[in-house]
């Protein structure tokens, strides 16, 4: 707990931006704040979250596929004593984007990072255990949660109705 009283979201945002001016903040509500973080600074920001909010709970890390090789990586932390929800948003680009791993600061993020790696193909540098978490070995490198991944609609004909969308084009990444 940084202070004895609870910390407002805007206060927290300001204190982060003061230390790291590259970060921009975006107040979602009174107790929720979103920080847009450049990919190179993610370790510093997570370190700051750990220092400022001593009871920070790492809720999750996950990716969002924005198509055309654009990805968002979202970190969510919750501090119960400050009633403060911190959401970090990192924009990534490229075929297999890379970012620093933060699971030495918050060990609880290790599996979330593993899952993001296997599902989206976002590499985490210095990750201690970069194995597959949920997927079987055949799907290594298939990245199922990307939008390009072709899912199985083969049995849709049986319903007797037309498929709601046109079928995905050939050349999906399914192996």
């Amino acid at each position, binding site marked *: 707990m940084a202070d004895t009283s609870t910390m407002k979201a805007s206060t927290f945002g300001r204190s982060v931006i003061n230390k790291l001016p590259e970060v921009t903040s975006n107040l979602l509500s009174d107790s929720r704040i979103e920080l847009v973080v450049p990919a190179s600074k993610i370790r510093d920001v997570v370190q700051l979250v750990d220092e400022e909010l001593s009871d920070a*709970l790492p809720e999750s890390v996950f990716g969002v596929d924005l198509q055309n090789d654009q990805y968002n990586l979202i970190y*969510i932390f919750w501090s119960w004593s400050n009633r403060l929800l911190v959401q970090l948003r990192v924009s990534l680009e490229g075929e297999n984007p890379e970012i620093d791993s933060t699971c030495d600061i918050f060990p609880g*993020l290790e599996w979330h990072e593993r899952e993001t790696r296997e599902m989206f193909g976002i590499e985490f540098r210095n990750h201690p255990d970069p194995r597959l*978490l949920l997927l079987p070995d055949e799907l290594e490198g298939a990245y199922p*949660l990307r939008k390009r991944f072709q899912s199985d609609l083969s049995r849709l004909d049986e319903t007797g109705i037309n498929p709601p969308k046109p079928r995905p084009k050939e050349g999906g990444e399914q192996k």
Partner: protein
Amino acid sequence: MSPDILDGSMDIWFGPQHVSAHGWATKLTLVGDYIVECDPNAGYFHRSAEKVLEFKNFRQGPLVLERMCMLEAFLAEYPYVAAVEKIAELEIPERAKVMRTIMMEMSRIHSIQFWWGQFNAELGFFTMALWPWVDREYSLDVFEELTGSRHTVSFSTPGGVKYDFTEKVMTQLNRAIDRFEDRLVKFKDMQLGSPTFRARTENIGLYDVKQGLKWGLSGPPIKACGVPMDLRKDDPDPNLAYDMVDFDVPITENPEHPGQSDAFDRMEQRFAEAETAVSIIKQLIPQIPEGDIVDPKARGKANRLPEGEAYARVEGTRGITSVWLKTEEKGQTAYRAKIRGPCIASYYALKDLVPGSKFADFIVIFGSLDPYPGWWDR
């Protein structure tokens, strides 16, 4: 761990075909009777729920969520519904709010009853496993009377709830609550006073708050350390009726190790959770207002949602359960739905928590954290 100790070690796979490993597998390295390394493995229960949610519309979505953890189905489906409601800016009728809250607490009681029996079965006391499951039948009767299904309830829908309380549901509900209250008083002493139970659980799986928060633990495993971290108080959902009741966050503090919790504390904590849930339901039952149970315009509004992002959370039986939802403009389905189950943290925590303990205590530590494979495999 120095390599010469590991020379005489034995790797043993706990699961996936183990009797008590239902949908998970953990690789343990034993030296003698002591575990020196623990490698929890996930993925045996993976049903690609997040990908499935991208193909289901917003009325079908809760069905996927409630199948993540059928023991707390009312709680599990709620975050998705809440996220949809946030994006669509739906108004929820008062009656639906109270009904949701009552059924979510009932679901919590059901989940605790199941876990109570499960934990005793893991400790080798099948008598005490079957007795709470008798009470659980009464909870299931309530669910069946209300929704027509015992586990996969599909109760909440964007804009309200699907099934209304009838006279008979209220009778069943009161009966289940009263019976559970009686039995809880009777069996709490029997459970916590049992010498063999104390011998097996005291000082087993000890961790402190700081460590637990770093792993991402939430809910009863943290509250058992004496920290009142509870979303029902800290981040109250406007669509739930927790502001209508007066309750304290249940915590368990053990004077022998303050700020830490062992398996015994976590058992005690779950009893306290059940008592709180019972008191919440008892306060809410007289306060159920009259009115609609679902917003009549919600069905049309929830068909196509505006573009938006929402993060909805609920204090589940096992910890913070949340859904992060992103929708496209006029999207019929979710663009991205991230399910954050509480048990991914408690299963991951075994990695650091288990080494150093005895092989026979592994299942006690595992059971006391109450992980459910659906929550980490999704």
